[in-house]
């Protein structure tokens, strides 16, 4: 049987969700008998293949226009899109910015920190533009499975992958794998 293809990517994230995924440890070896990770932010190949994957995993919140682009690309190239972590599901800690507003957050971060000398708010056209409001991935693209958690524990990843591999969809997270605190 051909291996199931999985691609992961991150948006406005701290990398904690990917760390948690790697914390599957020896279970990764078992998992790799059944799946191939085509691309991820922590491997050489960064982008999901144009030919598509079965499972696309996104971590992190939608914070700028670049995040929207990445999210749309992953959506277009995956059969099932999984939003992983509190940021991808709810906006998470990134959404704390919403409480002060984007302009105030940029000003504080780039002009006013105690160590800033001659600060400048980046405005290169190559960079994504920060959005007025931080949201979860579900606000931008259709998400098939939400897996909250900060981060979700390795066994939660394992559970979701196992269920998708077994074709048990739509997925309702049981309480032991459902934690957003």
């Amino acid at each position, binding site marked *: 049987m051909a291996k199931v293809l999985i691609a992961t990517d991150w948006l406005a994230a701290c990398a904690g969700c990917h760390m948690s995924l790697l914390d599957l440890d020896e279970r990764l070896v078992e998992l790799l008998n059944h799946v191939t990770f085509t691309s991820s932010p922590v491997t050489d190949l960064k982008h999901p293949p144009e030919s598509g994957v079965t499972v696309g995993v996104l971590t992190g919140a939608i914070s700028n226009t670049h995040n929207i682009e990445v999210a749309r690309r992953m959506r277009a190239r995956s059969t099932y899109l999984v939003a992983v972590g509190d940021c991808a599901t709810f906006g998470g800690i990134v959404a704390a910015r*919403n409480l002060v507003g984007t302009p105030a957050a940029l000003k504080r971060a780039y002009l006013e920190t105690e160590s800033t000398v001659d600060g400048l708010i980046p405005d290169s056209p190559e960079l994504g533009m920060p959005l007025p*409001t931080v949201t979860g991935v579900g606000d931008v693209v259709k998400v098939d499975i939400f897996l909250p958690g*900060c981060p979700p524990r390795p066994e939660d990843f394992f559970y979701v992958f196992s269920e998708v591999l077994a074709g048990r969809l739509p997925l309702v997270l049981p309480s032991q794998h459902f934690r957003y605190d």
Partner: protein
Amino acid sequence: MSSIAITINGQKVSTQPGQTILQAAQASGIDIPTLCHHPALAPIGACRVCLVEVTGQRTLQPACTFPVADRMEIQTESPKVVRARKFVLELLFSERNHFCMACEMSGGCELQNLGYRYGLDHWVYPTYTQRFPVDASPAHHLMDHNRCVLCRRCVRACGELVANHTLDLRQRGAHAMLCADMDVPLGDSSCVGCGTCVNVCPTGALIDKRSAFMARPDAVDRVETICTQCSLGCGLNVVMHRGHVLRLESSWNAPVNGGLLCRRGRFEALEDRRTRILEPLIKEKGRSVPASWTWALAETARRVFNEVPEQLGLLTSTRLTSEALGLLQTIFAKHLRSAQRGTADGQTPALPFTPCGKLADIAGSDLILLVAADPVQDQPVASFLIKRAVDQGARLVTVESRPTELSAFAEATFKPRDVGIAVELVMAAARPVVIYGGGLTKSGAKALQKVESKAKFIPLVPGVNTVTAAALGLNGRFDPAACSTLYIVAGEENGTLDDLAARINPTAFVIVQACYASPLTERADLVLPMATWLERSGSFTNTDGTQLRAHAALPPSGQSRPDWDILGRLAERLGLDAGPAKAELPRCGA
């Protein structure tokens, strides 16, 4: 009353008319989720989480307020109900900041638990971004409006339970906000700082400052004990995490207070900053040096045994366990026949009325006569009970030489010389309660005797175990200057015994059993370290004669020992039967 039959989820349930659907369901073990409902508060149906389907009703109905009727058919988890509940929760989560991961209540939050139960794994509505203020002005708790779901539990607790009416809602709809008085900071308001609102808050909107973020609510242990700050002996739960006390919480089934606590009992009891005495100390050449328990007890026994009864003095705190007070009676009254036996309360006058009334009687009374007592200062929870009864329509009449904070709630206040008029009012009432304090004069007591058979009398004594100490004859005359050997059980007394050191005969040998260092332990020739109220179990008889049981939450610190343990060992040294002495208590009507 005849029972009626209803059907819940196809299950036949027998219930009483007048019950709500929620009560009927709970009585038969059917779980209906709630959020604004609290067992100690009147239901208001504010949150709509408990919606159920009632056959024949056009819309879903809140189970917490909807009364049952004969042959009613109810569905509590039908697809329609679940869809509505999820919708309600999505709306609740969409207002204000309900990000669980940075919340003190995460792990014990009722809103979070509902989110898990109904599978809320992402926001359905746009993230709400308005920022609300945090009011941290009270000394011991704070109000974070960002976490508030406007369930009004705190408003009802403040009004219905504490009868303080500080909290309320202002504005309407999405602009609705909790506020104190006429929208002033809580710390500047009429709030008495009892923390009942903190205890009933289902989310992290009202939290205890001292213990906030110290442990997840699902990782704590609770030990039920009683408060010894005043004479009521309110039941409470000590909340602990890995052997550290986090906070004190209401115990809703407690016999005396039914969950109420005051600022002193809930918060200040954990704020004692005095230096603990952690080992036996003996004075050598003017300096206190550590000694062993064996030696300290042997020396204590030798000293008290060799003293003549006339010059042997015993002074005890009335916050000791009945077991310890019983041992003090065995040792000092029965065995050593000490002539001087007093309590830290001073020489309390004998209580003239057998304690027939209970604090619970206040609730059903139509007239409360308060004589020579200031419960707002001395027994705050009793003042809550009185104000609650006044809210329910009871009339309050006070007899006092100086106005107290309760005078404002009184229909009439009389000077002590006019007690006769107050007695007339009691005569005319249907279910009168007379609450009297230690300041009751002989003439006042005589005047009140006229209504002894009609009214329920509730005494307010100073200490949590004053009743036992008095019953054991330990509250007699005590003149420190007349003693050449003194055994003083200072326990946790704070300030009340500080001036005593100066009045003790300079040549007297002073043994002090205490929890904390004080001028008295400085003066002492021998100090025996005692465990605090959190570190010992034991029995108490509170001011209205209710038997209470305290449970140790912590092991004794250092080498300190529970009061009864120290005295039991001393009795053993003296060759006495160290079995737990039972206090002989006055019985109602005896």
